[in-house]
């Protein structure tokens, strides 16, 4: 493995468990332990543990309006109750997406921002440049580990380790102890299943990982299936459906944009009527679309590009996300994916592809 990759506190654990390791967003991460299909099955039916310590966490202290935080993010945060979280994004001046993120309100004047691993440095620079001088800002990414416990049985496992966890409703969080170790746990996730994200001190992460895995029902699960699960839920991934050249309207982030407030990139983002828009489609067969495939209309005209594609174990056919012309993104429209020589048929579908997720139960 390349020396330039960062390691989470669990790299030795992953290797010992037989994981296939890959570079992802600058990090050396487990792709899979057994097989993607087996791990999919376990996550959707039982409960899985993911190491997501690569993701970034920033701490900001101050009044959202006064310190400038409100102006950096696209969504409404001033009315957030303490101990809730909210998904949004931040834009550059040209209206492109710097990153998507989740804002945690830890107190009336204390915030945690969770960002993508590959964007940590870029985002920290953006916050430092745009927060008011003397605002407390800390990049806590390398001292905060994150474990995601996801699956319909996640609550049953966690209520034993972290009593009181049952009270958390979707997109809320609180402070808990696991083995006497202080953790922030939120009821959030990226799989579509009931699940929790556990933030803990970097040096204690291994102990928590082992404690949770000691439960017979919990299995470690890699980033390979995490990507399949999120595509089944039609969740965007930075670098695929989101980047600095993509406007939030194209990316379908409309409902995470507060048009009534001022934020960086607002003018451009709201003024643009995008010529293309994100769409979701289901292959007519097991043949699966892949990122980079072209999208064609029924007449053979090129109308877009695939940003994410995979075989869906839940639907037993291929599924894809891509940008396509506005006219063609309506549900039920027939499209084709592939290249000029080899095209396969698909139908534009409603999100999410996978409808049986337990995330709100």
């Amino acid at each position, binding site marked *: 493995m390349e020396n330039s990759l960062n390691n989470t506190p669990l790299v030795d654990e992953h290797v010992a468990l037989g994981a296939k390791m890959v570079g992802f967003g600058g990090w050396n991460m487990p792709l899979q332990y057994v097989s993607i299909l087996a791990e999919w099955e376990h996550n959707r039916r039982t409960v899985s543990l993911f190491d997501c310590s690569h993701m970034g966490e920033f701490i900001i202290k101050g009044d959202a309006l006064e310190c400038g935080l409100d102006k950096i993010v696209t969504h409404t945060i001033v009315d957030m109750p303490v101990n809730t979280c909210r998904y949004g994004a931040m834009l550059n001046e040209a209206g492109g997406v710097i990153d998507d993120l989740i804002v945690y309100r830890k107190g009336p004047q204390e915030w945690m921002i969770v960002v993508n691993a590959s964007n940590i440095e870029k985002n920290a620079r953006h916050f430092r440049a745009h927060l008011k001088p003397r605002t407390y800002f800390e990049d806590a990414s390398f001292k905060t580990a994150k474990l995601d416990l996801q699956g319909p049985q996640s609550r049953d496992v966690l209520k034993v380790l972290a009593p009181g966890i049952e009270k958390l409703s979707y997109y809320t969080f609180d402070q808990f102890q696991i083995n006497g170790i202080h953790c922030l746990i939120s009821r959030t996730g990226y799989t579509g299943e009931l699940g929790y994200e556990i933030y803990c001190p970097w040096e204690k992460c291994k102990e928590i990982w082992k404690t949770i895995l000691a439960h017979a029902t919990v299995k470690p699960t890699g980033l390979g299936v995490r990507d399949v699960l999120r595509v089944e839920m039609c969740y965007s991934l930075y670098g695929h459906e989101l980047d600095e050249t993509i406007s939030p309207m194209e990316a379908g982030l409309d409902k995470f944009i507060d048009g009534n407030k001022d934020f960086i990139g607002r003018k451009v983002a709201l003024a643009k009527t995008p010529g293309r828009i994100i769409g979701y489609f289901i292959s007519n067969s*097991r043949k*699966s679309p892949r990122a980079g495939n072209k999208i064609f209309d029924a007449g053979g005209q090129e109308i877009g590009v695939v940003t994410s594609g995979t075989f869906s174990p839940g639907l037993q056919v291929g599924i894809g996300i891509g940008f396509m012309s506005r006219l063609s993104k309506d549900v039920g429209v027939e499209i084709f994916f592939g290249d000029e020589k080899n095209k396969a048929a698909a139908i534009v579908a409603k999100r999410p592809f996978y409808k049986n997720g337990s995330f709100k139960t």
Partner: protein
Amino acid sequence: MEIEENFLYTKEHEWVSVEDNIATMGITDYAQEALGDVTYVELPEEESEIEQFEQFVSVESVKAASDIYAPMGGRVTEVNRKLEDNPALINKDCYGKGWIAKIEINDMDESTNLMSAEEYRNYLDSLH
């Protein structure tokens, strides 16, 4: 990593078993392990003519699609239709029930472009 002793191999990790003038081919244990769960196999058309090392099959796993090359040239006489409903046969039994196609060989000398089991084993070692 399992290797069948009497088969011949390509650098792209296809295997071929020659009986009379018919070559049965598939992908190796190394290839199926690297691909992961196979979810779709785009089979060649029967009766199509292919050249040695021409791309003629596509094997898809959950996360990726891979091109498969003909280990020997000739006419495709039979394809493994069982893979249409059960592509996981390639993971379960890549040298047996997971075979992909049979080719009527044009030129037996093409086998000199392939590796023996021993050579393939050394080749795999050299990849690590």
